[in-house]
């Protein structure tokens, strides 16, 4: 879907307003905000680049080449440096935001897929899925200072700055590794739901949230004890999470549904469901405007959303009935990956079958 297509398709309801949907590079996954320059940076994995967005005009203003398949992104306001976790490059790329140039690369573990910054302690943490480690980088010297054993699928990562604890979600293990950030030592591994893909800290409630992508749930963790205290329902295949500045709500991007769920952090209920682009991935909140930014991996776009809810609405969003249900499947004629020959739905006539839509990312 191109920018022209989405521009005419912006949606508004009483609970949200889609301000813009901007075409980015291919497979945008992670997004970070530079409050000083009023920019968003979007890691576009299949473009090996970062798309630069002006948040005042809601326009794309540039692109920076980084390592192979940048998956996640973090911005350091103090130095003005931007960091990407390059999945296939096995590096963290370092970009100077003043010049928008790649200035360094730091080697990390295998399949680096999650990043977070502890700005006060000047440490960047990178979850490396296939080496099951967390790389620790000094953001001033750009040196790798430690590699900490986590569990298989180490990826999404967040910091409890108050306690200097680091939480790494392990996608393949279905667990959360808790690290003492002062000593670079594992404190514990906690079981969460299947395939945890995103984590977000809520300082206002002293909680951490973990999106369990194979269960359509979000685990709630008490940061004081690192114990799982509950669970909330999200949409289909939640893979991104961001906490609103007031801490009263959590935004969860649902890759399987093309939506963002707005979850109340106190009541655990879904307050609203916002349609965004196809296959949404990472999301974050612009702390200046309060707007939600969602990277849509399938659509190749960034959705900018204004949350209009002052409080929990009296009515929860309906679960919409899909328009295809009970209807004849429209016929298909698509090339076979192996033979390149076109195959049609007639081949499967009078049989029960499942069409599984997927992407390799």
């Amino acid at each position, binding site marked *: 879907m191109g920018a022209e297509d989405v521009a005419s398709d912006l949606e508004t309801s009483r609970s949200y307003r889609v301000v813009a949907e901007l075409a980015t590079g291919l497979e945008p996954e992670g997004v970070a905000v530079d409050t000083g320059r009023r920019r968003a940076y979007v890691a576009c994995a299949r473009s090996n680049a970062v798309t630069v967005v002006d948040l005042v005009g809601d326009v794309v203003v540039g692109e920076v080449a980084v390592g192979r398949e940048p998956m996640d992104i973090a911005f350091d306001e103090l130095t003005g440096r931007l960091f990407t976790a390059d999945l296939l490059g096995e590096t963290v790329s370092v970009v100077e935001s003043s010049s928008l140039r790649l200035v360094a690369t730091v080697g990390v573990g295998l399949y680096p897929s999650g990043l977070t910054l502890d700005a006060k302690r000047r440490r960047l943490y990178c979850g490396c899925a296939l080496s099951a480690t967390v790389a620790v980088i000094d953001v001033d010297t750009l040196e790798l200072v430690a590699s900490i054993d986590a569990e298989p699928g180490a990826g999404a990562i967040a910091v409890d700055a108050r306690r200097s604890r680091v939480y790494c979600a392990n996608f393949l293990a279905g667990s959360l590794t808790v690290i003492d950030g002062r000593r670079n030592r594992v404190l514990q591994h906690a079981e969460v739901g299947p395939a945890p893909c995103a984590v977000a800290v809520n300082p206002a409630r002293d909680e951490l949230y973990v999106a369990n992508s194979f269960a*359509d749930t979000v685990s709630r963790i008490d940061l004081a004890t690192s114990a799982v205290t509950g669970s909330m329902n999200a949409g289909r295949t939640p893979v991104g999470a961001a906490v609103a500045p007031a801490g009263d709500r959590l935004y969860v991007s649902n890759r399987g549904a093309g939506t963002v769920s707005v979850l109340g952090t106190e009541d655990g209920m879904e307050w609203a469901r916002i349609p965004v682009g196809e296959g949404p991935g990472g999301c974050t909140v612009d702390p200046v405007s309060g707007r939600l930014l969602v990277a849509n991996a399938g659509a190749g776009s960034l959705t900018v959303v204004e949350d209009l809810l002052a409080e929990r609405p009296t009515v929860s969003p309906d679960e919409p009935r899909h328009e295809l249900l*009970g*209807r004849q499947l429209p016929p298909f004629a698509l090339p076979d990956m192996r033979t390149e020959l076109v195959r049609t739905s007639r081949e499967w006539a009078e049989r029960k079958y*499942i069409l*599984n*839509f997927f992407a390799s990312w």
Partner: protein
Amino acid sequence: MILIDVWEGGEARRRVQDYCELWGIEGPVLLDEAGAYAKLLGIRGVPTNVLVDSTGIVRAVGAGNPDELHAEVDRLLQGDPR
């Protein structure tokens, strides 16, 4: 099960071949590179499963997580149209 790959952003065949080799995926894999068929069906994310009965009627859409998919398959096999 028929797998339909969408939204690869170029080089779909090569990428999907690598992916199927990595995960040992067999069976039919079709390419909907621009996502036109997905769009026709109103598919907005991945994974999405569309369950079709023997008369070609769509009985379920979604069922992205394993538990939900197993439940929908059971219903389809039992002929429960709901």
